[in-house]
């Protein structure tokens, strides 16, 4: 048998096998279930409302608040938040927002429900720098914007916390509060370092 026939037979056989392989998306940078579970258990992936208030007051430039409520419900967001409705995260191609290496995205919705779902999706896709606001907007409103005075029997820490929250409330709702638009930052799509498309070609 000459080389051409041998080669033809081999490549036709391999090609037939290749044609029968199921076409599936490759997911090498995605996390598997154990890695996702590890991320879930990591406290560092969650922000409490008090931590968020502290970051906002200190003017941390690296945080990006993402409000994932439907666009129709996007009223009175936490200051500086941008609206990315959960329903449209794939249709409107917001991937560049979630998949980047510079800003810390803090996701929130009314409560933990949809925010946790979105966080799971981004985490599983291997996107980094996405964090979850514990308790969502409800918790933010009740604890930071409208803190309750602790009962007189409460421990001293509760009073300290109330002091801080009252100050934060003053900061976010008081007369000195800046109009929310002032903190809107221009978004530049930043490619994540790890999954960077290779530049190639011969041109």
């Amino acid at each position: 048998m000459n080389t051409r026939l041998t080669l033809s037979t081999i490549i036709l056989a391999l090609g037939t096998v290749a044609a029968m392989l199921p076409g599936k998306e490759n997911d090498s940078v995605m996390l598997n279930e154990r890695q996702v579970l590890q991320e879930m258990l990591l406290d560092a992936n969650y922000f409490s409302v008090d931590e968020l208030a502290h970051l906002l007051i200190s003017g941390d430039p690296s945080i990006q608040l993402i409000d994932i409520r439907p666009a129709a419900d996007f009223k009175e967001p936490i200051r500086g938040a941008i609206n990315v409705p959960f329903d449209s995260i794939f249709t409107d191609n917001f991937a560049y927002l979630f998949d980047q290496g510079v800003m810390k995205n803090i996701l929130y919705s009314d409560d933990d429900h949809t925010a946790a779902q979105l966080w799971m999706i981004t985490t599983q896709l291997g996107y980094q720098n996405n964090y979850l606001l514990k308790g969502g907007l409800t918790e933010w409103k009740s604890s930071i914007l409208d803190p309750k005075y602790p009962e007189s029997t409460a421990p001293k820490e509760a009073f300290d916390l109330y002091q801080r929250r009252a100050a934060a409330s003053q900061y976010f709702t008081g007369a000195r509060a800046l109009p929310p638009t002032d903190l809107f930052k221009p978004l530049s799509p930043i490619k994540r370092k790890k999954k960077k498309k290779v530049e190639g070609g011969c041109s």
Partner: protein
Amino acid sequence: MGPIIPINDISTELNYLIAFLIGIGFGFALEQAGFSSSRKLAGMFYGYDTVVLKVFFTAAITAMLGLVFLNHFRMIDLSIVYVNEYYIESAIIGGVIMGVGFIVGGFCPGTGICAAAIGKLDAMAFLGGSLLGILLFGETYSLWEGIYMKSYLGGIKLSEVIGISDGLLVLAIIGAAVLMFWVGEWAEKRFQRPDITKDI
């Protein structure tokens, strides 16, 4: 998990060393195939020597099959691998100009470099000409910029355009290649020119 270098952020120096080693393999394969001879290359278009067809398609199919299988076994992430960007006009116009250049000059840049390495003077002339051609394009770039950038379709794949799976497209290409190999060997007998083939 591949591609190894972009995923693992390997240093530039090592990247260049690997580029150099891959280049050695590339040059070795081209020279061994006989691509360092312009008359052997041109034989493709007159039927007396179809080595270009055989090597080109065997190489493309080997790499295609390899990528499909590596992707299947999750050894390579094809979404990172560079897919040539498609600009309809510039790809066709550029291809046509290169086609004329091929039949006139008898080399393409890769084979020209390879032939120059073993001392072919016409290959060196060809490479000099290529540099001139690139300079010419650079100097007249403003004239072509419109058409050069027109109809950008991104890095799309043929399989996406036709709407079939990668594997099926590879099988179709293999079918076509097997046929072409057969025609090529037939042509080599039909248009045989012992005087030339002996010479090169």
